[in-house]
């Protein structure tokens, strides 16, 4: 499980996760990810394009970040291409909390608007 991050124009931080968000993968990245995405209020794009699998533990990690940002007025969006992972996230109702976009560009537009 790997995690990369970069800052785009407009102070948007893109955090790209790469690998399976199963128990092992989530545990490997959870601390780092939570610190990066919850220790300050800001605009975050979580890129899940290279996450081939997501289990409930991964959903939980994303939800914690989303909730913490939104409680403090931050903005967050997920980049999830069409496919099973998107269906899994939809089943968990993530879409009601965070916008889910199919690519980085539309996610950037979503997060920059408003």
């Amino acid at each position: 499980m790997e995690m990369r991050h970069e800052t785009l124009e407009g102070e948007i931080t893109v955090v790209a996760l790469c690998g399976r968000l199963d128990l092992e993968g989530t545990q490997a990245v959870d601390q780092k990810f939570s610190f990066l995405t919850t220790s300050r209020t800001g605009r975050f794009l979580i890129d899940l394009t290279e996450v081939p699998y997501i289990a409930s533990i991964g959903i939980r990690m994303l939800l914690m970040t989303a909730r913490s940002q939104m409680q403090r007025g931050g903005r967050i969006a997920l980049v999830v291409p069409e496919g099973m992972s998107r269906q899994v996230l939809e089943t968990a109702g993530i879409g009601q909390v965070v916008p889910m976009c199919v690519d980085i560009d539309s996610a950037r537009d979503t997060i920059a608007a408003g």
Partner: protein
Amino acid sequence: MNRATFPRAASPQRLRIAPEPASLRTVSDWLHAFASAHSLSPDDTYRLDLCAGELVTNILDHSGAPSRDHLIELVLSQGERRVRLEILDTGRPFDPGEHLATTPPPGPDAPPGGWGLRLVRRFSDGWEYERAGGHNRTTLEFEVAGLAQAASRPKVERGPDRRQAFPESHAPWRRADGTATGGNERSGTDRRAAGVLAQFEMFRGVPYALLEQLLAKCVVARFGTETVLLRPGDRNDAIAFVLEGRLRVHLGTLDSRDHVPVDRGRFVGELSVIDGDPVSAFVVAEAGTRVLLVDSQTLFTRLLPIESVNRSFLRVLTARVRRSSERIVEQLRATLALEQLQRDLRVAHDIQLGMLPNPEAFFPDRDDVDCAAAIRIAQEVGGDFYDVFFLDERHLFLTIGDVCGKGLSAALFMVRALTLLRTEATRRGGGRVAPLARIVERVNRQLFERNEASLFVTLFCAVLDTATGRLSCVNAGHNPALLGAPGQDFTPLDVARNTVVGILGDIGFRCTDVQLPPGSVLVLFTDGVTEAESETGEQFGSVRLLATLDAASGGSSTDVVHAAVDAVVTFSGSAPRTDDIAVLALRFRGADSL
């Protein structure tokens, strides 16, 4: 005969794993190997992987302390366009269906858990659980696009079928799309239905010839697409035996997922046939299902007089009555458990509020400080807190905090945070008050340890030296404190920002010192105040808060606190309150007033 269920001869594949997190990858690799060998689609592979992963994770979570005797075994078998996965374990009894039924659904505001079993329900095509011989056995079924080795059935030429004596009594059936089936859709293969039926429990022991003679008069209906056979209120005059495929009985609405499957060899419709009353549930035939319809006349005059059939029929009925009684008892038990839980929550609410100092009785014997606080908890138990107490004659400690999340886990975390703050703040190093930054660092380190749920708390802590008016502050991810100096408007205190408490272990916290002029008022609050929403979704915001405080700054601390809380409550109107609110005010009258 086309078999939709699993022939025992299918080669099962087994995997035995230790009950430890590392086994999850083993399970996943094993499933991927199976999927690859059977040309399963990536989506079907994902579903298998996801459901197996969630169930095994559940076993790890719920099986109690790890022991050498605890084993988990997975068995895969495949049928035509179907995969069955059995998961056995020797841990404590754990029925995932029951667990799901008694766990509140997760949502944006609920504790972040409970998704796993819901994912299994959504991404499998049915599960069954049984506890037998000291094992939990959960069986998952998947309808898959691969495994397409099933050749089409050889077409049997059908001539005039003299045995179709009363085909008009049941057809046509309505399909889900509103069209109707034709008449009797009996195929050549169905002539062998009696041979299949002879294996069914109800007809065990009945001579084949007699069965054929009896059943020749009945209709076989085949449903190419998903079809609604019965709706609540319909009249029904036939028992439907499933020859192939599956019926589903939906007790609530048609789209409810809480349905009872009726598989091959089992039947539905007996209650309305017996008492003649309207049907009480939806019965849906899945695509490709074939049923044999036994009308009431045939049932009562031909089948039930046969003693062995009669016994079997009564046995099936009795088993259903027993099961439904058990279900009622289970529901009753769950209701009672829920009531107990609600009582416990009310007690927890009282205990939690009881932990906070009584805001009406802060330091009545001190003339140099005037302090007041108020808290409103949105649910039974909350995550906001405040505290204020003297460390010695001279130093006053005050804090306000907000635990991320709500509900019981947040409440328990709040209790830990508050207790640690009290312990660390009052700890003496060489008889002196510890520096505030050290206090917060120690609290942070201890909250970070054993914080499996990754909860955290935002904190504003301060120590006022009442002799000098010097205020040391640490702000850990919390809203800024507001200061109203005499004759001036309230403004946010400029204090160094630190990260939230509980998320990272070994970090330092920066402390900022400010001077409180005599007569000034310090106000601490949680974000529930500024983020309270009106009925139109507008937030209360810091501008309204500052204006409210400015207007009230001439009064006592109690007046200031009540003005803030009242303004938020009035602003919210009937909008649902989703977050706790807490406010603490301190007026420093100055050392001279001692």
